[in-house]
């Protein structure tokens, strides 16, 4: 029983992928700096809100910083 957290872009410098227990995201000890006003979340490929999020077994939650310009 586990869920997977992945960190994209510059957030990947802060943490590699993590395996965590299912349950409320609020109960997970996240690496510092991976949540912020401009970081969006995708649960199994669908954009979601962090508030009230509960991870189920097999879920993949991606942390997405702003995309690059240029």
């Amino acid at each position: 029983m586990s869920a997977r957290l992945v960190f994209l872009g510059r957030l990947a410098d802060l943490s590699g992928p993590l395996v965590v227990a299912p349950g409320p995201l609020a109960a997970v000890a996240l690496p510092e700096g991976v949540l912020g006003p401009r970081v969006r979340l995708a649960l199994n490929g669908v954009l979601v809100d962090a508030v009230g999020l509960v991870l189920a077994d097999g879920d993949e939650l991606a942390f997405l910083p702003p995309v690059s310009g240029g």
Partner: protein
Amino acid sequence: MLADVRLLEEAFDPGAALGSFSALPDAGGIVSFLGQVRGGGGDAGSVEAGSVEALELQHYAPLTLPAMQALAERALSRWVLGGLLVWHRVGVMTPGQPIVLVAAAARHRRDAFEAVDYIMDHLKSDSWFWKRELRDGQWHWIEPRDQDVADHARWGD
């Protein structure tokens, strides 16, 4: 008409891609945009931190290709096109290598120009790519530019 939308892990030949694309039957006018990795120091007027040795584009598979396909569908519904190609590299690229190729074929030139312009303005912000550059042996993440937000806002969507 389906768009030819691809995320490419390996280098591609834009001349050959456009050659095939221009053989489409209803391709009276074709507009293309090719973006390539810039070499450093080529612009005499600018003072930059260092020359770019390599560029890396990261993506997130569950989001990036679907977002590109949705963008292509929006362009197809907005302009009358005879063909649409949207190819984007991911991974590590060196100066001179192609990053993105967008091409639109149309009977009327204006449709093709606007469709390519629209896709380029939206690819950067609507699709999920994270870019970093290797300069002086160190990787630097590229943050969004104000100009990209302004380009996107031109279209009102």
